[in-house]
């Protein structure tokens, strides 16, 4: 089946079997291998991407469910010139990563948590993601190559 979506700002059409998970469409069809698979049970969060602006575990969603959606992966987070997003820069500055495997999912989750919206009351007073960067990276990313997202 054909699924149309916008991935990292580009319109794409993916020809995928109906049982194809979003993470497989991203990794296998679109060659966006920055999103990783760390478990079979939606526990680890390594595969986290943004779908319509919210963090989603892409191993837990069918590609077909992303029809018409705007998807952002880790490859779409940095600026066009390669400059890192403030959250990526904060992970580097705070040594919030080691082996890097689940890091991409951690970064996508952290960006979501730091995005001002009512549910993120802890960061309600932040007008920009950068305000929340330091506490989020400290909290989320004990660098150990082996810790799961809370």
């Amino acid at each position: 089946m054909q699924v149309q979506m916008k991935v990292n700002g580009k319109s794409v059409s993916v020809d995928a079997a109906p049982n194809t998970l979003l993470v497989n469409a991203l990794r296998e069809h679109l060659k966006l291998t920055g999103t990783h698979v760390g478990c079979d049970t939606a526990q680890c969060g390594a595969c986290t991407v943004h779908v319509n602006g919210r963090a989603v575990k892409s191993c837990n969603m069918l590609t077909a469910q992303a029809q018409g959606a705007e998807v952002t992966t880790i490859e779409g987070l940095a600026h066009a010139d390669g400059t890192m997003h403030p959250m990526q820069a904060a992970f580097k500055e705070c040594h919030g990563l080691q082996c890097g495997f689940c890091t991409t999912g951690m970064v996508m989750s952290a960006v979501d948590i730091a995005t001002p919206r009512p549910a993120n009351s802890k960061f309600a007073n932040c007008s920009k993601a950068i305000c929340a960067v330091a506490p989020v990276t400290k909290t989320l990313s004990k660098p150990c190559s082996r810790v799961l997202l809370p």
Partner: protein
Amino acid sequence: MGASDFSKLPHIGESLRRKEDYRFLTGAGNYTDDIRLDNMTHAVFVRSPHAHANIKSVNKAKALAAPGVVAVLDGPDVVDAKINGLPCGWLITDTSGKPMNEPPHPILANGKVRYVGDHVAMVVAETLEQAKNAAELVEVEYDVLPAVVDVRHAKKATALHAEAPNNHCYNWAIGDKAGVDAAFAGAAHVTKLDLINNRLAPNPMEPRAAIGSYNRASDEYTLYVSNQNPHVERLLMTAFVLGLPEHKVRVIAPDVGGGFGAKIYLYAEDVCLTWASKKLNRNIKWNCDRSEAFLSDAHGRDHSSHAELALDKDGKFLALRVHTDANLGAYLSTFSTCVPTILYATLLAGQYATPQVYVEVDAWFTNTAPVDAYRGAGRPEATYLLERIVSRAAWELGMTQDAIRSKNFITQFPYQTPVALQYDTGDFHALMNHANKLGDVAGFPARKAASAAKGKLRGIGYSSYIEACGLAPSNVAGALGARAGLFECGEVRVHPTGSVTVFTGSHSHGQGHETTFAQVVAARLGIPVENVDIVHGDTGRVPFGMGTYGSRSISVGGSAIMRALDKIEAKAKKIAAHLMEAGDADIDFANGEFSVKGTDKKIPFGTVALTAYVPHNYPLDKLEPGLNETAFYDPTNFTFPAGTYICEVEIDPETGVTKIDKFTAVDDFGTIINPMIVEGQVHGGLVQGIGQALMEHCVYDKETGQLLTGSFMDYTMPRADDFPVFAIGHECTPCTTNPLGTKGCGEAGAIGSPPSVINAVLDALAPLGVKDFDMPATPHRVWEAIQSAKH
């Protein structure tokens, strides 16, 4: 250059941000499953659903007829191809003088399966889905046998291997038994302890993965594999299993998402993929599912021990006597046999001047996944046992946990322990004093009272660990049964424009070598760290290497690079002497400049580098052009990181929930090159060790041998919000036996923390009458302990 000069170089001890982070943070890492080759097929392994069974038949017909299937290979195919079983890299000699029982470890089961997850067949198909579907169609008839999973019952269980009567692998001992027995006979007090060190699943976040590739034109194999030591992988696979010439096999371990020991070993999957890539003339990828990883990665720990500590009336240790039953699982994994012996028993002197130690180990086969080195490998088991019995002795004698330790600390170095090791240096009192201060132990009674006012139980637990890192002097390891050398190799390639590429046999899978090693080279040569790149993980690019495990990388791999830099400096001085028309002995090198002693003549490093490659004005009659040196470094001793950890827990007696409220870790890693990276390693180790103490536990069903904890939904992994902010401190007594003064920091946290947590739990529960407790301290187990103490 020696350790004291090295530690004074500019930028040593600075927390440079990591060079490797950009690619990881932008999704540009290159892990094995990210690699796409043309002509790729996908492999799925048919695994045993039974813990112990004879295979009556394997019918491949339906699977072979399924869409997209390229091949189905099983045990008889392996026998036909004359492929050997997986080798064990360490021979332990039984106390009888005979070699250990060493049964075959076939890459695909040959007539019998011995644990749930054992490899029965490999299905290769055009797509992963086709391979998965076809694997379901492989019909295997089993004759199920009784299974044993508990090491304490192995002796009387149905034998797994004809070569191992009573499921026994070896009995091994170290120390002076008669001397220990005599010391016990005269002791004023004996403390006894039975304990279990719980089995763990390593769970690197990247599951294992591999791609077998064969080039018919050049008759060359390439194996991409998520592995910690590609040269060792190649050596074992070519020389012992496949009988291939080593130069025709290239092993590439690209970005690797954590290892923790589980990726040291040569696994059946790696061999199957390499073999089949030629047989089928196709590239074959296998990517392990997490549930498959739980079944098939080598597990860690799983000891059952009885320990006795003899003390005089003042709390001085007289002797330690230990017996341990070690569970090796169903087969001997690559380094399984040295973990409960060489890497365990030799550490049981700990930080203490105990005059006599005797340790006896029985190692057993059971119907469980093979057990091998896992972050710490033997030293966590030693530390857990010793630090538990020391705290228990303190409580029995009415001493504090720090007083009994301080009373028995070794203070004179070098110190020869009664269990083979010689500690070169350390300052255990400094570590204890620092930890007591950093952890505000003086304020503990007030915090305990505050907890009590809330109805909570607060406890404090100590652990003073020492570990042996920097594996290892090859001749010593060889005398102890190692079937490999344990040196490291480093090549420093200075380019004509003065930038440098370093090729190291160490492998980084999260440790930040690309930064730390570059820092070492940049400091030595006086050039910007941006001008140094580190290459690792590819037998086609790196001359040789023994890889990364046992916290050896900086001490052994870094020392090899230092030796190569010594050669670079010596040759560069000759070139500089020629250019400045001075004698070789009159040249100094500092801050990236060569100068002539007693003059103002000087030239920068870059000029010498360029001259080496454009040798117009050059002593060609005496010196080869180029500036490229390789060194092999074999350590003369182990290194001995040590530390004192203090844990404070607060337990809710109503629910059994144990919260780590405060955790203090003071370590002596010798010279520290990048404190930020070291702190990250300590954090990771602590999280892993506290994970073992509080939540992690691999559980097999006692009757069926089924793994009950086979996913992240059943096996509790530590999460960031399970921990407080750690208080981290350092003392420094530089290692005296390597040119960096470093000791290694990768495993310390996982080694030192578990006993501190359980001692804290026991301290908290002591008023309720709880005297003993085995890991993990899950709410249910803590609650049960509280309830049974009440009745």
